[in-house]
């Protein structure tokens, strides 16, 4: 099954991967070939099989609502790529300036 360049671009965009022209071609080819092998799954009738989410046979354990988190043995500015006035700093989202009063992400 072939993957169109548009599909590859859309997927790359969702994954925030910028692929160069060569990478794009190779990716389209590789994905198509890998996905071909996935057809092996179509020979099984799984309509009545419940999906297996994971292996654990227990319910989610729950902790008591008590403050007390794993401490950071190195300060944040030791590993943060950009840190100013106690904040992580990132370049602005280009489209943001169009949203004069942008709200939260959620």
């Amino acid at each position, binding site marked *: 099954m072939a993957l169109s360049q548009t599909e590859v671009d*859309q997927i790359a*965009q*969702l994954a*925030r991967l910028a692929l160069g022209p060569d990478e794009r071609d190779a990716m389209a080819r590789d994905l198509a070939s890998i996905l071909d092998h996935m057809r092996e799954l179509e020979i099984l009738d799984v309509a009545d099989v419940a999906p297996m*989410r*994971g292996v*654990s046979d*227990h*319910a*989610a*354990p*729950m*902790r*008591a*609502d*008590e*403050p*007390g*988190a*794993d*401490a*950071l043995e190195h300060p*944040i500015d030791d590993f943060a790529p950009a840190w*100013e*006035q*106690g*904040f*992580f*700093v*990132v*370049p*602005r*989202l280009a*489209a*943001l300036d*169009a*949203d*004069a*009063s*942008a*709200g*939260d*992400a*959620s």
Partner: protein
Amino acid sequence: MSEFEPVIGLEIHVQLKTRSKLFCGNENEFGADPNNHVCPVCLGLPGALPVLNRRAVDLGVRAALGLHCNVHERSIFARKNYFYPDLPKGYQISQFDEPFATAGHLDVQITDGDAPARVRIRRIHLEEDAGKSLHDRVPGATAVDLNRTGVPLIEIVTEPDVRSPAQAREFLVRLKRALEYMDVSDCNMEEGSLRVDANVSVRRPGDELGTKTEVKNMNSFSNVERALVFEIDRQQRLRSAGEPVVHETLLWDDRRGEARAMRSKEESHDYRYFPDPDLPPVEISAEWLESIRSSVPEMPWIRTARFEAAYQLSAEHAEQLTASRAVADYFEAAIAAGAEPGETASWVMGEVLAGVKAERTTIGEFAIRPAELAELLALLRSGKISRPIARQVFGTMLETGRSPEDIVEKEGLVQIRDASALETWVDQALEGSPDEVQRFRGGEKKLMGFFVGQVMKASRGKADPKQVSEMLRQRLS
């Protein structure tokens, strides 16, 4: 009226009142220094894993039960995948196709046209909050504070049952009241512990649902109402002109009074939800559910009806007294201490709430406790003090913290009924105002109030006004 009726669905994010975050032990506290309540888990550090906070489930289930939802024995956390700087893991842990609660409702009173008085709640799910991106903190850049990351939220999603901006507002007021009653959230819109998004469309009555837009960034209930009025009007104009409504996200700009399309989120959404393999299913046993059920308090709508019936209050007074659980509790504590409901209701809605406001406190911390109010009202009821004196004593209680009994005794505020004492003041009043006596006798009967006032003044409010008017009537007849 447009031929197109509005159809509104609401999505409300509510921060739960827990001590720690949903999946880690950091404090859930508003207003700390930036990036102060963070750890490997909520920073999304490589290798960190989530562990669910039991209290968050507890509060979420309580809210769902209060809103008449079905609470499911088993629910699944899923990952909602998208990139944003304040979303550390690149996904939000939320619930998708198996939320913990579905099919609830909340009744409202505003029924525009044939609108339903019942707003159905489609689902409630648990999820973690994102951090905050501040775009005006560092010049030309975005500053990210992750204190809020991982704070527990419930998202309440209604069916598109709301038919007007006013009804939306009433729903929100009632929802907030219900959540406050259940003590699951601070519900503070300014601090963001309650956030509202609206899905809006218009249609000809009876038609299928029209294309909807999502309106965000409304940080008060009146903003919600204004934004809905704006957006409904915009959609109605478009449709009347035969133009289509575009499915998009709009941001409400309160200053300009308009909602504008949000450019920063226009990139294609595909959240690629899938069950979070780090978290096994959440199980809520029948036993646990029952214990949570017993923690659901009497809900506001039930309390309002009970106040009306049990205390013979007007519908309006019952509604006012039960608008806040703390006020209703205060009222009922005073009744329990022997106060009479009608009198207590007017004192609570009057002096008490005015006092709370003046003292900038909450009714829960108001200096005059319900039992003391009941004591004061008992003095009033027995006739030991007059109403004006009662108000004065209330002020002194608030200032000094002394008991009403003590104030009345020490300051000699007991109502005077002794005929000989009253006689003197009555004489003085009549002798000092010969013209008025003349006019009264000439038929100007409304001057009675003037004479009573003169006597009350002379007695510094302590004379029994009933007895005074009786004596005056005899003397002037």
